[in-house]
């Protein structure tokens, strides 16, 4: 009788191919919001919108926030949230500028230091969340405040410039080199704007980490069902601490990029960047409940946010209306890119 039982073939080869194509289409769905904005940009401003310089400028302006968004995505995937990334970017940028101004360090010395500073505070976030079991919202909100205070204190509330001139009136070699982090106009091969490159590289690296490594799998497991993960031998505490540390490290890395972009480290740098970063992740499909989201999604979310700004700006929409339209389009984009859109429109479908 067992033969009859095994009969229902769950995966006929033909069906499986169709299924896969369908699910790939479903993934394509995720880009509809972005396509919509690109379409509007091209329709309204054509060449002015769709040219390398403009797109580079647009994405470059968001690059440091995009990098924050990658870190925040990691944290969100485990079911937490990181509100401190804006402040951590701030202290990262201040660290970079001070290292440059006071100690004339080279970029390759500055970056690891900034990343270490960010990672340290990120680790504290993780420790508070995992060991003291403080809700990450509270822990990182407190960190936001603490780090901002420290940032302002070490800088004495004065912004620190990064375009340090030597005795000859020209930029010092270190200051010159520092500009590659993203002072507008400094490009690789005269074409590729470094912060955009950095953002893309960070996205690729963390995409690979999340999809190809054990650690990535554990991140999803912790967010998807922490109990199940624990019972399967996943070290939930370690994973939690790791994602916060990585998020802090990335924020530290974004610091010099922001400092170079502004050619100075402002004690207020990064203020409320956390909201942009979280928005990019969530628009990209990450669920604040944890366990659901991808770096590709976050990348798309970041593009949506920054290109939307760009399109509205190029169209010279007044700022107040920009705020209104931006909110509306984000809603439309999020609705359009849900994977079950068609099913949803047909009505039905229950939670």
């Amino acid at each position, binding site marked *: 009788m067992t033969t009859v039982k095994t009969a229902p073939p769950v995966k006929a080869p033909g069906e499986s191919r169709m299924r896969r194509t369908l699910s790939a289409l479903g993934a394509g769905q995720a880009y509809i919001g972005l396509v919509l904005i690109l379409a509007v940009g091209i329709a309204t401003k054509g060449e*002015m919108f769709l*040219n390398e*310089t*403009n797109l580079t*400028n*647009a994405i*470059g*302006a*968001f690059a*440091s*926030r995009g990098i924050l968004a990658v870190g925040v995505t990691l944290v969100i995937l485990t079911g937490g949230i990181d509100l401190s990334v804006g402040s951590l970017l701030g202290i990262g940028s201040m660290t970079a500028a001070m290292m440059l101004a006071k100690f004339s360090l080279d970029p390759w010395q500055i970056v690891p230091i900034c990343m270490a500073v960010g990672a340290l505070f990120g680790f504290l976030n993780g420790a508070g969340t995992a060991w003291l079991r403080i809700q990450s919202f509270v822990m990182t909100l407190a960190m936001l405040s603490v780090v901002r205070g420290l940032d*302002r204190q070490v*800088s004495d*509330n*004065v*912004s620190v*410039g*990064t*375009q340090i001139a030597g005795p000859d009136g020209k930029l010092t070699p270190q200051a010159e080199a520092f500009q590659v982090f993203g*002072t*507008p*106009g400094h490009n690789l091969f005269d074409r590729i704007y470094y912060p955009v490159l950095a953002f893309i590289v960070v996205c690729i690296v963390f995409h690979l980490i999340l999809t190809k490594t054990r650690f990535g799998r554990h991140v999803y497991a912790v967010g998807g069902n922490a109990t199940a993960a624990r019972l399967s031998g996943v070290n939930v505490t370690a994973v939690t601490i790791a994602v916060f540390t990585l998020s802090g490290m990335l924020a530290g890395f974004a610091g010099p990029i*922001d400092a170079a*972009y*502004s*050619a*100075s480290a*402002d*004690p*207020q*740098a990064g*203020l409320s960047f956390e909201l942009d970063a979280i928005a990019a992740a969530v628009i990209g499909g990450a669920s604040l409940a944890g366990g659901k989201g991808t770096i590709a999604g976050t990348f798309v979310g970041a593009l949506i946010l920054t290109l939307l*700004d*760009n399109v509205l*700006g*190029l169209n*010279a*929409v*007044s*700022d*107040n209306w*920009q705020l209104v339209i931006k909110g509306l389009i984000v809603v439309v984009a999020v609705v359009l890119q849900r994977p079950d859109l068609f099913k949803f429109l047909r009505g039905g479908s229950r939670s």
Partner: protein
Amino acid sequence: SKTPAPSASTDSGAGAKKKFVVGYSQSNNAEPYRAQLNLQLQHFLKQYPDIELLPIADAKQSSATQVSQVQNFITQKVDALIVSPTEPAPLTAAVQQACDAKIPVIVLDRTVNTDCYTAFIGGDNVLIGRKAGEEAVRLLPNGGNIVELRGIMSNQPQIDRDKGFREAIAANPKIKIIADREGKWVKEQATPIMQQWLSQNQQIDLVYGHNDPMALGAYLAAQAAGKADKIKFVGIDGLAIPDGGIRAVQLGQLSATFIYPTGAKEAAETVNKILHGQQAEKKQVLGTTQVTKENAAELYKQYDLSGQN
């Protein structure tokens, strides 16, 4: 960007009647002072029929936003660019890019760290701070205690308004600043700070607010404590709006305020000159006017733009 000449950019418009397009990036629309500046700039530029001002771009206090706004304007190949930088350093490179693209740049209100701009127009915050200090010295002939409500600590105007003020009150060693806090330019932040100062039972003779809203926020707290009559309030900005500093002086809430000139009129004139190939002064530093009970009504009328736009 392939360096188009500034006037060549309007080729697309063709025809005899050429209209110049001007972009303006404002650091933060939602401060009363800046809203006033916007209003005035629109008003004065309207008087030049061949100049079109694009909708004002609001950086919402974010340098990153402002840099991309300037870049947007460069992309749009505007004929002239006005920028009120949030902070000097961040905008430097962007202004340099505009300069490289041969777009004339007028820096309004706050400076940038490059010489590659066409004109700077702005007030002198150290000067205004000094005037406020001198007024404090005048108001407190026998010396006294001052509390200071600062703007956002790292903002250059905050630094300058503090510096000038302290320089001026040094004239009377019996005047002391007994406390200072960051009110972040916001009225609602100033009230509880003032309440705490009052709770500390110290003698307060004068409140110096880096802008009028903060001075007025402190006034509300003092009024509630029944101490408003014994304390003088000095602010800065002197906006001609119903909720602004000039009215507050008229009502006797502020002892004095100082008009921080918007420079809108000068900016409009300068833009016009530049676009028509005339020489414009590279650096125009504007003075200030003290608002007193006597001249308040007249100044209000002079600066009031409601109904004119």
